[in-house]
């Protein structure tokens, strides 16, 4: 029952309540991301950045990776469902669905993942064979990478249920429209983020 709630809390929470908590989660993710240098260049990607970007960048990015998919999923739900679809439900549930990435932003504080990234960059990009890294850092980095995969799966499951509950779509139609919506959202947010990055840097 608890697992069900973790994957689909929208049976009990949606609309304005979900929107309030969702916005709070996104603002906290943006703030945490600013300090841990973790950003989200598209709907599902998580990246550690080396340069320091202003706080505004992280907040605008959070809004962007939420509003663009919301708009796409609303159009799909409106087109595919025979039920009444409320914008508030789509916005609220999709905002709350971003909760796992708050944990991802917290994981960015780990120095191991940064050192592992620098090590890989030195080895692959600069062909620097003298680059070293401790075994603990490698183990920690692998654990964090594994955790981020789990967080991504969790968030996609939440997004799917947010879309399904808000639109009353079922079966193959729900799955098909969700996959198409997610794919378009990833591409759209990726390009939008490129523009945002150039604007702030």
């Amino acid at each position, binding site marked *: 029952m608890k697992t069900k709630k973790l994957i689909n809390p929208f049976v009990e929470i949606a609309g304005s309540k979900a929107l309030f908590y969702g916005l709070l989660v996104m603002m906290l993710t943006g703030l945490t991301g600013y300090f841990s240098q973790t950003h989200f260049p598209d709907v599902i990607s998580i990246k550690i950045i080396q340069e320091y970007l202003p706080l505004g960048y992280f907040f605008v990015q959070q809004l962007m990776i939420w509003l663009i998919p919301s708009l796409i999923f609303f159009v799909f739900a409106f087109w595919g469902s025979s039920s009444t679809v*409320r914008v508030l439900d789509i916005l609220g549930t999709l905002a709350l669905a971003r909760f796992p990435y708050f944990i991802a932003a917290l994981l960015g504080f780990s120095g191991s993942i940064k050192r592992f990234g620098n090590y890989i960059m030195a080895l692959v990009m600069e062909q620097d064979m003298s680059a070293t890294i401790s075994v603990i850092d490698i183990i920690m980095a692998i654990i964090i990478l594994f955790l981020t995969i789990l967080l991504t799966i969790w968030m996609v499951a939440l997004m799917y249920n947010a879309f399904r*509950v808000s639109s*009353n779509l079922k079966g193959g139609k729900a799955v098909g429209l969700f996959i198409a919506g997610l794919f378009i959202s990833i591409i759209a947010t990726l390009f939008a983020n490129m523009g945002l990055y150039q604007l702030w840097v």
Partner: protein
Amino acid sequence: MSLFLICKIQIMEKRLPILCPGCGGILKVKSLHCDACDTTITGSFGLPVFHKLEQKEQDFIMQFILSSGSLKQMSKALQLSYPTVRNMLDDLIEKITQIKKTEDENKKAN
């Protein structure tokens, strides 16, 4: 043990069966009885749409009426989100439409 079983049977709510246990078809009322004057009427009476629904669906309709048709009020009472309650209602509308369609087809066939 046997006393416990008797008590359990006594408090069990008797439910009107709507589907035939043999073939799964919709059951009809064959006889009606008046306890006051011991009169029994026999015939073939179809069940109203409401009784063709499952118990939880009938409860949902009752709750809907008692909430003056307010889905917001219902979502609060059932501790469910608004879209969940609306989806339940939409599914029920779909089911009733299907039952009525089948009934009309059966009438035409007869």
